[in-house]
């Protein structure tokens, strides 16, 4: 890194036009000869990489893969209610039996969230100016942050399902595995609600052990039960 003032990552962001205006100005004014040589080298590498790729074909493959990441989006919403009724009923019955055998009924919650099982987790959603309650109405473009309240260490994922029935893993973003949660229960990052019409439901899914997020999607989409040892809390926001 001798004589370098800018990291490769910053140089690559510069090539992508993604550098902040302040850093772009700094790069223009302060780049050393070594920085400039590395920038030119990266530019050549980028061009060489793209020459070996059929971008249009690659984009088609990416879009096909993206579809596989949102399986619910391909099914009409009403079909979900026709096919899995038996499974859903069985799962609900099993859940009731499990809860009754495990402990007395949990105390009534404050109505701001729905806890599927126990008191391991409670999802709180913060809007830009206030905490949002279950059933609140929000507008597209609203930025929100998630807080996962609960006293136990473990692993968490935040999953949303929107009005088109598309599911999205919001935290950890796009991941397949839940991530560890520590004492800081306000999760990093914010999301901006899009314009998809209809209610958007957010789920905090928690377990003391790591779990693949795929295994909880049936419970999130209402087509199956939660695996054992996993708790879930839900908040619905109405979009107008």
């Amino acid at each position, binding site marked *: 890194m001798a004589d370098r003032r800018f990291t*490769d*990552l*910053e140089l690559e962001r510069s090539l*992508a036009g993604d550098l902040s205006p302040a850093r772009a100005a700094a790069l223009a004014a302060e780049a050393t000869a070594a920085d400039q040589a590395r920038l030119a080298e990266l530019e050549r590498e*980028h061009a060489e990489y793209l020459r070996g790729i059929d971008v249009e074909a690659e*984009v088609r493959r990416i879009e096909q893969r993206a579809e596989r990441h949102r399986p619910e989006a391909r099914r009409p919403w009403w079909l979900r209610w026709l096919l899995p009724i038996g499974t859903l009923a069985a799962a609900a019955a099993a859940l009731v039996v499990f809860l009754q055998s495990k402990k007395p009924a949990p105390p009534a919650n404050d109505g701001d969230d729905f806890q599927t099982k126990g008191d391991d987790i409670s999802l709180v959603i913060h809007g830009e100016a206030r905490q949002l309650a279950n059933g609140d109405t929000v507008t597209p473009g609203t930025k929100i942050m998630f807080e996962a309240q609960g006293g136990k260490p473990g692993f968490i994922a935040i999953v949303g399902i929107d009005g088109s029935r598309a599911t999205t893993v919001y935290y950890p973003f*796009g991941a397949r595995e839940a991530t*560890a949660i520590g004492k800081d229960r306000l999760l990093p990052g914010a*999301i*901006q609600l899009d314009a998809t019409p209809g209610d958007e439901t957010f789920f905090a899914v928690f377990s003391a052990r790591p779990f693949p997020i795929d295994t909880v999607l049936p419970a999130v989409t209402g087509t199956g039960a939660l695996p054992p040892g996993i708790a879930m809390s839900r908040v619905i926001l109405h979009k107008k």
Partner: protein
Amino acid sequence: MHGAGSVAELYRKHAPALHRRCLGIVGNSDDARDLVQETFARYLAAGSRFAEATPFAVLYRIATNASIDRLRRRKTASEDELDDNAAPTDGGGSGADPNHTARRVDALHDLVFLTRGLSEEEVTVAVLHHLDGYTQDGIAESLDLSRRTVGKMLAKFEEHLKKRAARTGFTAPTAPTGMANDG
């Protein structure tokens, strides 16, 4: 949400850097190209609703984590060795040093093991610091984070490392040393 044209534009802008990121971790160009596809697919499936960062920052985070996940699965499935061809991605031309490459492979082994359970952003920061040798200032400037945030994330990683080592008896020869020394 994204038209094919805009996806193609996004790809042309960011795919080369993402490929270099993935290649530096998995050490295999075909795997890296597949991971770039996977990165864009996850990004598109999420609907680009993440307001806190630029597309590059989000894509870079996904690519780093997807690459580490790939190595974890590779090790879990077959106990394969990590690829010794894992190429340095930064540092301005130190890639020919065999000691550097050996240290890098060791660091990869350790990071794959030690970052399990961390958030995506924490994994990204840990990889940049301990694998790529970025200073805290360099990470802060590269990812538009405050230096304090980077420091907190690395401190959390160190804490995570200690707990994991205590639980498993693992002794990390390279991760705590890193390759950066900005204090």
